[in-house]
């Protein structure tokens, strides 16, 4: 279903439909995250991916264009690059441990330690929160710095938009 949605995003020319389909894609992802036991990630994806980013995309669409123009010529180069990259990545997964295996490298070192230690160290039921806010607090600090920088960037880029528009209209009169 995810693949069908993604292909529909690729094929659609109408940007409104593309934006809505990307929202659908995010919701389907959130469902998948729930089945993969990542409930916190599912919450965030549903709120951020399906909610905020759809609103942002719609806002941008309202300020710019509604339809995508037909590409003038079809070039095989992107398709080739994508196929080669995909092939190499699939070749890389052949050495990966089986899905859900409890003895894979990802499961064996740090994760067990977090799961056994966090009830004593932090004492809150949700391990994800414990790691996010305490063991890896500096990561979260870095994340907020990134968000702050992005906010400043957005404000600088479109801050003067309304003012410039007014000036243009004033010049035209």
């Amino acid at each position, binding site marked *: 279903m*995810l*693949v069908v949605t*993604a292909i529909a*995003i*690729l094929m659609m020319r109408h*940007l409104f439909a*593309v934006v809505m389909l*990307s929202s659908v*894609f995010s919701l389907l*992802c959130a469902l*998948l995250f729930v089945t*993969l*036991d*990542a*409930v*916190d*990630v599912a919450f*965030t*994806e549903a709120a*951020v991916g399906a909610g*905020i980013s759809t609103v*942002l*995309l719609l806002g*941008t669409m309202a300020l*710019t*264009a509604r339809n*995508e*123009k037909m*590409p003038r010529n079809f*070039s095989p180069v*992107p*398709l080739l690059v*994508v196929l080669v990259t*995909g092939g190499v*990545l699939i070749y890389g*997964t052949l050495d990966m441990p*089986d*899905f*859900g295996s409890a003895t*894979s490298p*990802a*499961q064996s070192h*740090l*994760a067990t330690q*977090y799961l056994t230690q966090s*009830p004593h160290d932090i*004492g809150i*039921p*949700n*391990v*994800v929160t414990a*790691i996010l806010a305490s063991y890896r607090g500096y*990561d*979260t600090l870095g*994340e907020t710095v*990134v968000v702050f*920088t*992005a906010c400043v960037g957005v404000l600088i*880029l479109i801050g003067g938009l309304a003012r*410039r528009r007014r000036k243009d209209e004033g010049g035209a009169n």
Partner: protein
Amino acid sequence: MTSEFILGHLNYWLFIVLMMIGFYIVVARGNYIKKIVGLNVFQVSVFMFYISIGKVEGGTAPIFPLDMNIDPDVVYSNPLPHVLILTAIVVGIATTSLGLALIVRIREEFGTIEEDEILEIESKLQAKENSAEGPSMGGRA
């Protein structure tokens, strides 16, 4: 290649297919909003890849009972990828919004958000500058 091997790796292949669809949208489509959507698809498939690495067969979400009586028989999935991906989702929306702001500025400057048309306008501008200042700058204005 046994059927067990294929079933154990099918999830990775699904995410790689999704990732490549996103990648193709980014490189092959000229509309900037569509490129951003493609980038989102790419990004989300990487997230799903990470989360699927953290899944343990028969496991449950890594949240203990409220009274903290932890049953040692219950298997919990790996919480570490969840934390990393939570951070990545938020950073992703930050970069997306920055990209969209850039698109709004590009539209204001060029009047279009199609890559072909912008390249055309750029080359016209360059040709004009070349003909105006070409001799003094060696034809490479």
